[in-house]
């Protein structure tokens, strides 16, 4: 009995230790470029978890999710950069970003949530494009977004007076900035995971899944489907807003290019490939899609050199090609995703 009770704690401790050491292992073996990719992977995981609430739990197909990420990122950029000469602290911007993105979510959702699934997908897609086009063009007559050039020299995220872009000496031991960002993102990602799990196991989470399964029956159970869907939209959007703020502070630069439809598609693929509605699956999906394409970008050219003596296919080209093929193949052979909820997997096998 005691071993059963202590083992999970031991396991957790080991995982925590592994996660704590990961940035050093990565930067020592693969280099800092990979540590940076790891940081981005954490941001993507947060995004995917946010979208999972909307698509995975509530079953609302949102193809413009990246717009909320953009809202969070631009909010950070405008409030903490020389562009307007504002330098707000991160702890003030992130909650505000979550709030503003959430409000955008409600604004988009309120008129559109009674639409059928495919139509909702297209409207959200259109909304995402509208946000991007405005960012591209709101540099005149008043320069708000600085147009296609984007906003540069954004303040790095600063915690307790220390900008995370600079390395920190802890007891004579140097922790590089990229690792500091890693720890911050990791903590926030875990926070979002916990929030996601708790929501899923609650009255609200059950209502979301009920709507996904059968909206009319959900209404008959006394669920105000409109409000509950709006809540899903707002929650998902606010996760996206937080991730966007982190992205802006980490990158220290934002431009409309980062918020195209392809990015929305990428995040949606993380959710669907991983396993819609299943939080561990979505984390796996986020990690894979953030890391694998980069691996190809870095590994494809040398590999081709070794095999053929020259680079036959442009690595960037190859990366996207394989990404597209992977989407097709995974859906053909595992339509419920790579790591679906165990009970759903049982269902699929049967049918």
């Amino acid at each position, binding site marked *: 009995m005691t071993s059963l009770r202590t083992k999970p704690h031991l396991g957790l401790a080991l995982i925590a230790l592994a996660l704590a050491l990961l940035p050093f292992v990565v930067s020592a073996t693969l280099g800092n470029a990979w540590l940076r990719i790891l940081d981005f992977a954490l941001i993507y995981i947060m995004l995917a978890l946010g979208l999972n609430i909307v698509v995975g739990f509530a079953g609302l197909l949102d193809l413009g999710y990246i717009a909320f990420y953009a809202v969070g990122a631009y909010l950070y950029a405008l409030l903490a950069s020389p562009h307007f000469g504002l330098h707000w602290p991160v702890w003030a911007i992130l909650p505000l970003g979550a709030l503003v993105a959430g409000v955008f979510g409600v604004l988009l959702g309120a008129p559109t949530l009674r639409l059928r699934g495919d139509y909702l997908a297209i409207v959200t897609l259109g909304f995402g494009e509208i946000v991007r086009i405005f960012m591209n063009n709101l540099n005149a007559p008043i320069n708000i977004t600085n147009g296609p050039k984007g906003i540069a020299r954004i303040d790095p995220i600063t915690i307790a007076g220390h900008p995370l872009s600079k390395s920190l000496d802890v007891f004579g031991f140097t922790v590089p900035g990229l690792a500091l960002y890693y720890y911050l993102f990791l903590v926030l990602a875990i926070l979002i995971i916990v929030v996601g799990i708790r*929501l899923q196991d*609650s*009255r609200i989470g059950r209502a979301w899944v*009920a709507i996904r399964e059968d909206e009319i029956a959900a209404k*008959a159970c*006394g669920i105000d489907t409109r409000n509950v869907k709006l809540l899903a939209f707002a929650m998902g959007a606010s996760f996206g807003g937080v991730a966007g703020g982190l992205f802006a502070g980490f990158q220290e630069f934002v431009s409309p290019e980062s918020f195209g439809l392809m990015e929305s598609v990428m995040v949606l693929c993380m959710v669907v490939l991983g396993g819609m509605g299943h939080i561990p699956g979505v984390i796996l999906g986020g990690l894979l899609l953030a890391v694998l394409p980069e691996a190809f970008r870095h590994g494809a050219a040398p590999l081709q050199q070794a095999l053929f003596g020259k680079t036959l296919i442009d690595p960037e080209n190859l990366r996207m090609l394989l990404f597209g093929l992977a989407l097709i193949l995974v859906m053909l052979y595992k339509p419920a995703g790579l790591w679906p909820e165990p009970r759903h997997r049982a*269902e699929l096998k049967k049918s």
Partner: protein
Amino acid sequence: MTVLLEAHGIGKRFGGVQALKDVSLTIREGEIYGLIGPNGAGKTTFFNVLTGLYPRDEGEITFAGQPLALGSPHRVTRAGIARTFQNIRLFANMTALENVMVGRHARTKVDVGGAVFRTRAQRTEEAAIKRRAEELLHYVGIADRANDMAKNLSYGDQRRLEIARALATEPKLLALDEPAAGMNATETASLRTLIAGLRDDGLTVLLIEHDVKLVMGLCDRVAVLDYGQKIIEDIPATVRADPRVIEAYLGTGAA
């Protein structure tokens, strides 16, 4: 006996088709009220109007002394009318227990904040939801299937689960839309025991049914719809003997 539900002059049109015309009926507290009629007589339409799924074109409904708002099925449920569906609508990829837990939604209130911070109130409420759901599964006799996916239950058990889910909303009136459809004789018999038990426990039941034998044997009063109009509302013995009812079911050939 006190009146629980009073529908007055209900009318519903689909395009040019008058699906319901001036339907008035009264359901008293504690009775099993049967609504029968030939195919296409407007039974399910009346049901959908009553439960707010379709907006009604004419008429008033008073429930438990209050006028029943138009539209919005979830408000109807909150007001105390729960329903099942003719073609069972369960949450297929949720367990039986979770299905019933969803039914508690309208009677519980912890919001996102409570869920995220796992407040004491949330944990208490969550435990109560689960306990109540287990009780209800036990009540309808499928406690042993609690952790099975709804779609893996047998047909009869799915019907029972739907009733348990409806009961979870704490209804004053339980409206069952052809609960015996597709059931064999044994299943129908045990369903009959279940419904009679509901009445004995003080619930009012509105029963739409094709199976005339079941309705006549179970209901305290019966109304018959034909071509969207109510032709009679009385005790089963009288209804059974009424020539208009016989005509509606058998047709006269001359009509």
